[in-house]
C-alpha cells in the first residue's frame, strides 16, 4: 500500500514536469525562420499586416494530418483574408519517416495545391519550443501590442475521422472570438495524433 502510493506520487510528479514543457495559453510565442517548400525561408515577421497566425504542426504521413488536410486548406482560405494566415510546419525527422522528407513535402504541397506555406522544422527546435507533441497540433497566435500571444492550443475540431460530423469547430470559434475582442473558449483541447518523430541522438 505504502509502496503503491509512493509510486503514484512519483508518476504524478513526472507527469507534471512533462506538462510544464512548451507554451501555454497566454505565453508570448517566438518567431521562427524556416525553409518553405519553394526554397525560401519564412518568418512571421514577413506578415506585417497579419492580426495573428494559425500555426499547425503537421506532416505528410500521419493519417490524422491527412484526414485534416481539406480542413486546413479551408481554414487558410477563410481566415488569411481576415488576417489569420495558416502556417504549416513539419516537425518530423525524415530518417525515421521518409514520407516526411523535404522533397516529399514539396511533392505533397504541389499535389494538393496548399494555399499556405509548408515549412520544415529541420533542426526540430521550433516544435520543442512550442511544446507540440503530435500531428496535427494547432497553436493560434494573436498579435497584441507587437507581441505574438498564444490564445488557443489544440485540435482543429472535435471529429478527426469525419469533418461533416464535427460539432465543435475549435479553431474557427477561437478566431471568431479574437476578432470580437474576446478570449477563445475552450482555449485548450486535446486530440489523438501521431507522435512527433524525434531524431535519435
Amino acid at each position, binding site marked *: 500500500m505504502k509502496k503503491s502510493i509512493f509510486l503514484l506520487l512519483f508518476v504524478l510528479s513526472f507527469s507534471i514536469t512533462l506538462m510544464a514543457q512548451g507554451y501555454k495559453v497566454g505565453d508570448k510565442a517566438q518567431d521562427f525562420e524556416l525553409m518553405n517548400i519553394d526554397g525560401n525561408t519564412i518568418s512571421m515577421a514577413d506578415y506585417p499586416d497579419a492580426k495573428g497566425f494559425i500555426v499547425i504542426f503537421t506532416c505528410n504521413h500521419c493519417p490524422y494530418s491527412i484526414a485534416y488536410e481539406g480542413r486546413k486548406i479551408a481554414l487558410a482560405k477563410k481566415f488569411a483574408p481576415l488576417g489569420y494566415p495558416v502556417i504549416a510546419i513539419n516537425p518530423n525527422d525524415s530518417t525515421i519517416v521518409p514520407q516526411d522528407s523535404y522533397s516529399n513535402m514539396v511533392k505533397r504541397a504541389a499535389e494538393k495545391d496548399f494555399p499556405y506555406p509548408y515549412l520544415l522544422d529541420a533542426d526540430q527546435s521550433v516544435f520543442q519550443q512550442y511544446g507540440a507533441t503530435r500531428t496535427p497540433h494547432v497553436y493560434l497566435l494573436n498579435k497584441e501590442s507587437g507581441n505574438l500571444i498564444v490564445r488557443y492550443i489544440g485540435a482543429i475540431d472535435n*471529429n478527426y475521422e469525419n469533418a461533416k460530423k464535427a460539432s465543435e469547430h475549435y479553431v474557427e470559434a477561437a478566431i471568431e472570438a479574437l476578432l470580437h475582442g474576446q478570449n477563445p473558449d475552450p482555449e485548450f483541447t*486535446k486530440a489523438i495524433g501521431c507522435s512527433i518523430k524525434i531524431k535519435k541522438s
Partner: protein
Amino acid sequence: MKRLISKLLKISILLLSFSAFAETQAQQVEVRVLDFETFEPLLHKNNDTIYVINFWASWCVPCIKELPDFEKLNAKYADKNFKMILVSLDFKSALDSKLIPFIAEKGLKAAVLLLHAPDANAWINRVDPSWSGAIPASLIYKNEFRLFHEGGYTFSELDKIIKPLINLKQ
C-alpha cells in the same frame, strides 16, 4: 507399399486440414468496436489483475515497432493475473480493409479492440490527464497502482514494471 501410401495420405490430410485451420484463424479475427463509454470500465477494474492497455494504430510506425515486445510480455505472463488489451485508434472505416488483415498477418495473440471515439478531447483526460493524445501510449494498472506513459516501451522496460506488480497486494 500400401501402408506407405496410406501413411502419406494421412500426412497430407493432416497438412491440408492444418492449412485450412490456419486460414480460418485469419478469417476469425474479431475486433470489437467500442465507444468511450463502453470502453472506460476497462480502465478501472479492481480485481488483483494487472492491466496493460496499449493505445496504437496499424499505421503508426513506433506502435508497430513495439508490438512484438508487448506480445512477448503477454506470452510471459499468460498464466498470471495479467490482461493485455491493444486499443486500436484506427479509423472505423479501415476496420475490415486494414486493421483485421494486419492482426491476421502479424498473428497478434493479445486482445485487440477498436476504440471509435473521434471526439478525443472529451475522453483523453479520462484515460490520463498527462496524455497529450499522441500514440503510442500505455496505461499499466493493478488495483490502485497506475502508471501512464506517452511514448514507446521495450520488453525489458515493461518487464521491469510488471515483475514487482505480480506480487503487489492492496
